[in-house]
């Protein structure tokens, strides 16, 4: 059977903010484009649809991309790629202007966008929505209203419900992708002169996470297999304000509603407000909560307390009245908790992965023909993300890569696909469906998530724990991965099939996180080693990982400082929200 193939100049995998922006830019430059998402456009698990209020962009003097870059790099503890940071932040204003033109309802007075201050930023540079005029609102709704519509308006060729499984290569260059049509189970190869990966991070590889469940490092695994370089994979951001009691599995973030909506106070079991003590040690909030709970000073549900006793009852009641239609309110009522008198419990959960594929200022990976954008890249945030910086980096990298890929494709002839390679990848993708008996994928997924959660959390990392975790993950790769298979063999909308195929990517993502964490024998930003609890000035370095034969090769490279040099007093400055 011959595999059906299509061809395009620029192929974009992933239709969140980064992917859609890349597709628009590439098409505007005259390239033929194909945009792929694994779900329905705008209704997939792109993290963009759930972004909060932060949306930073330096627009007017005295602020500038340079000042924004300085804030970002200082906060990232100087392991950022300074050239990349500046390239991204310079691209930001153009993205904001275009989003406004496409219909995002930012607050504008005259021809000036109104901006608000967020922690860690030297100037007020957070773009605000017209309606709420506050930084606290969810901007994801607005992105979801506008971006998928732009794909339709601009008639960007779209392949939805298509699960990309692997990258195709020829003579060391990426020349397309393979994947499975979710709607009919058909395996297909698509040729492309350039491929842009915009598949997001891998936060869902941890037991408790905030993203959609399919954010499991699809692009990480694919890019690794074709030899791309990764950087600082040990840096994972955990959102500190996630409710563990009352337990609300669907919207773990509801603790943040209370945190910001009602100005709760954090305290431990003795009623002590513990954050200051940790702040003095330079630790981030998720780390502080983690350590306080591990020191057995948390609540019975494994979290830290958030109390509202200091807030007058009529203020609380007024707040709850406004929140009545939300599910967390309903669940709160059902659980019987009265927040006027009782504290809720919070614990951090995995939110975004700051390490990723190493790219240059044109978002090119180390593999020719392959670009990476959005959460999938490394080098922008460094060791700690600055509030509201992630989303602008998604739009800006999409913008940069879309144009760079279109320009490159313009110079290239049509690629020739290797039928033998397609056949090998087809057999690999179909194996879980053809194998009769084996291991169910969701049990293996849960094992990986447990290992990552227990040993590669926001704190509590040790040599011993990381080595144990590495051995356990290796065992899963060798013994269980070849055995995972679907129990139902229906070709249409078979969820288990996708789960079988994502396991390899989860394993790769977590293996790199563990190896990075083992290699970085210090504590910096969101990476905390219990056995190396201090920041080491000799460790202003990047941990680079790539596939070497069948092994994972690791390399430590000093960071460079073309614009901003670390200062003793600044190094370690970190902003909390």
């Amino acid at each position, binding site marked *: 059977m011959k595999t059906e193939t299509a061809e395009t100049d620029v192929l974009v995998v992933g239709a969140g903010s980064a992917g859609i922006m890349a597709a628009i830019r590439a098409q505007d430059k005259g390239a033929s484009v194909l945009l792929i998402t694994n*779900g*329905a456009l705008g209704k997939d*698990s*792109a993290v963009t649809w759930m972004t909060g209020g932060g949306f930073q962009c330096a627009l007017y003097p005295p602020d500038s991309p340079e000042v924004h870059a300085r804030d970002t790099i200082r906060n990232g503890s100087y392991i950022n790629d300074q050239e990349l940071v500046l390239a991204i932040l310079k691209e930001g204003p153009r993205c904001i202007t275009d989003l406004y033109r496409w219909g995002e309802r930012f607050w504008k007075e005259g021809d000036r966008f109104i901006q608000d201050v967020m922690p860690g930023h030297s100037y007020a540079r957070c773009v605000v929505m017209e309606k709420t005029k506050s930084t606290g609102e969810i901007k*994801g709704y607005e992105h979801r209203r506008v971006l998928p519509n732009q794909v339709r308006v601009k008639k960007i060729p779209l392949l939805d419900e298509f699960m990309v499984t692997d990258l195709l290569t020829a003579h060391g260059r990426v020349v397309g992708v393979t994947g499975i049509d979710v709607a009919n189970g058909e395996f297909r190869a698509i040729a492309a002169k350039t491929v842009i990966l915009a598949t997001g991070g891998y936060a869902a590889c941890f037991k408790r996470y905030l993203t*959609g469940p399919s954010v499991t490092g699809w692009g990480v695994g694919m890019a690794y297999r074709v030899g791309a370089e990764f950087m600082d994979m040990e840096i994972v951001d955990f959102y500190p304000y996630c409710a563990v009691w009352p337990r609300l599995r669907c*919207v773990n973030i509801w603790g943040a509603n209370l945190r910001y909506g009602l100005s709760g106070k954090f305290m431990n079991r003795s009623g002590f407000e513990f954050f200051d003590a940790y702040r003095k040690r330079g630790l981030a909030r998720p780390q502080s909560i983690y350590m306080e709970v591990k020191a057995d000073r948390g609540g019975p549900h494994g979290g830290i307390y958030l109390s509202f006793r200091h807030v007058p009852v009529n203020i609380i009641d007024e707040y709850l009245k406004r929140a009545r239609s939300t*599910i967390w309110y*309903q*669940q709160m009522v059902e659980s019987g908790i009265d927040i006027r008198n009782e504290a809720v419990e919070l614990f951090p959960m995995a939110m975004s992965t700051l390490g990723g594929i190493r790219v240059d200022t044109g978002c090119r990976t180390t593999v020719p023909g392959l670009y990476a954008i959005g959460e999938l890249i490394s080098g922008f945030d460094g060791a700690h993300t600055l509030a509201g910086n992630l989303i602008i980096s998604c739009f800006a990298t999409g913008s940069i890569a879309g144009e760079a890929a279109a320009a490159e494709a313009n110079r290239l002839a049509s690629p020739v696909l290797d039928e033998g390679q397609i056949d090998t990848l087809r057999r690999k993708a179909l194996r879980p469906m053809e194998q009769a008996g084996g291991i169910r994928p969701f049990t293996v997924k849960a094992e990986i998530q447990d290992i990552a959660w227990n040993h590669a959390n926001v704190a509590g990392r040790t040599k011993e724990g990381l080595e144990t975790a590495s051995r356990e993950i290796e065992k899963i790769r060798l013994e269980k991965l070849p055995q995972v298979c679907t129990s139902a063999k229906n070709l249409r909308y078979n969820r288990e099939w996708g789960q079988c195929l994502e396991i390899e990517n989860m394993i790769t993502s977590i293996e790199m996180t563990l190896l990075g964490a083992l290699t970085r024998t210090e504590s910096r930003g969101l990476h905390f080693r219990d056995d190396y609890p201090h920041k080491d000035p000799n460790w202003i370095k990047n941990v680079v990982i790539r596939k070497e034969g069948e092994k994972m090769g690791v390399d430590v490279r000093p960071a460079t400082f073309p614009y901003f040099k670390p200062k003793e007093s600044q190094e370690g400055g970190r902003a909390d929200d």
Partner: protein
Amino acid sequence: MTELATVKVFRYDRAVDKESRYQTFEGIPYKDRTVLEVINLIYEQFDQTLSFREGCVNGTCTGCAMMVNGEPVLACQKLAEKEMVIEPHPKFETIKDLVVDFDKVRG
């Protein structure tokens, strides 16, 4: 003793079925779970041929829009009940089980 739910789920495949049917699952733990979690549990433990969309599981993407006991809901934002009839969203054409074609609004 854990309370258990009875869940009736709409089953249909546009490609092969002439008519839809309902499949009943009994003895499903539902307390403190959302409708989407109950569907996931049925899928993992009872019937792996069941198709549905999961999306962001945060109440923003609307990928899990469906009908529960005759009301349109986001399955990830709705707490499960002891007796449930779960159907695809009637505004769109059904592709398979609870998966609808968001591009095809019913006339």
